[in-house]
């Protein structure tokens, strides 16, 4: 276990500081301290959420047991959009202010976002088949979510394909910003096309059952905590890789190889 705490000297400014002062070194130390807490929170909240959702939550009068896919589908869909906004904002701000750390944060967010976009589509498909009778329709909401997945994959692919980190950040950041204009489309298409579903998709309270709502909330919070943990853990990798030539990485990790 590398002595990460030594990466921060005692005469350095405080850890929690303005974004404009966020350096990769400080970010690394903070991420290392925080990610286990979010990991444990995710494990506890998701365990509770699964127990409530699969064991305690009652059978739905219309969809019977099938609605239980919602305990994954809803948080995954929500998180894919939240992570997309976070990626676009951090990447855009990182580009505008030339803050390398924010660009690193954006590239640490994107793969988890891609994962949740994929899960939202996959579980949505499994939900749709018995209810609508089809795995997939080219409808605005589904198409928009597919677009979110492709934007995430494009972001990750650009990051991987371009060796020069600054050029990679510029290309992928631009893609994220362009895609961000498509996000309102995703949001409003839900209401505009709601006739196809009979009703607009329900909010958290809509199932009208307190236990179901509690399960959805627990899974949502749990997977959100997981997102933070995975992003911070990946951020450490991104920072070490990009800062490999810097003195603080050399001093703290060089001898450990």
């Amino acid at each position, binding site marked *: 276990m*590398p*002595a990460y705490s*030594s990466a921060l*000297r005692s005469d350095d400014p405080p850890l929690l500081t303005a974004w404009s002062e966020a350096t990769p070194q400080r970010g690394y130390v903070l991420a290392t301290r925080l990610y286990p807490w979010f990991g444990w929170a995710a494990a506890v909240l998701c365990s509770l959420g699964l127990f409530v959702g*699969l*064991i*305690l*939550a*009652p*059978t739905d009068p219309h969809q*019977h*047991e*099938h609605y*239980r*896919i919602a305990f*994954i*589908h809803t948080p*995954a869909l929500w998180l894919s959009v939240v992570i997309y906004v976070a990626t676009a904002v951090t990447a855009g701000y990182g580009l505008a202010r030339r803050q390398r750390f924010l660009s690193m944060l954006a590239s640490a967010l994107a*793969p*988890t976002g891609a*994962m949740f976009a*994929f*899960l939202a589509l*996959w*579980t949505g498909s*499994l*939900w749709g*088949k*018995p209810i609508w009778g089809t795995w997939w329709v080219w409808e605005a909401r589904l198409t928009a979510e597919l677009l979110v997945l492709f934007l995430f994959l494009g972001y990750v692919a650009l990051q991987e394909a371009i060796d020069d980190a600054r050029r990679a950040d510029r290309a992928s950041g631009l893609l994220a910003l362009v895609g961000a204009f498509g996000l309102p489309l995703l949001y409003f298409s839900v209401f505009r096309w709601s006739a196809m579903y009979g009703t607009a998709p329900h909010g958290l309270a809509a199932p009208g059952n307190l236990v179901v709502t509690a399960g959805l909330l627990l899974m949502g919070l749990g997977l959100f905590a*997981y997102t933070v943990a*995975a992003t911070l*853990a*990946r951020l*450490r*990798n991104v920072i*070490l*890789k990009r800062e*490999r*030539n*810097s*003195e603080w*990485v*050399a*001093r*703290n*990790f*060089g*001898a*450990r*190889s």
Partner: protein
Amino acid sequence: MNWSGWSEFWSMGGDGLYIWNAYLVTVVVILTEIGVIALTRRSILEHLGRYAKIALKERKPRNEDSRF
């Protein structure tokens, strides 16, 4: 509690294949992501030594300890 037994729980009122598919794929994808992050970290740490030599050689030696 809605379930009278394990078999009823696993069959999920006939929807078991869809529901367990969704949950299983989610678990597999999440575990894969955790594994990829851990493996990436290991491979990065293995390669850092080479860069460290270059990085430290390029700079003047410091008086203070590295506090390592």
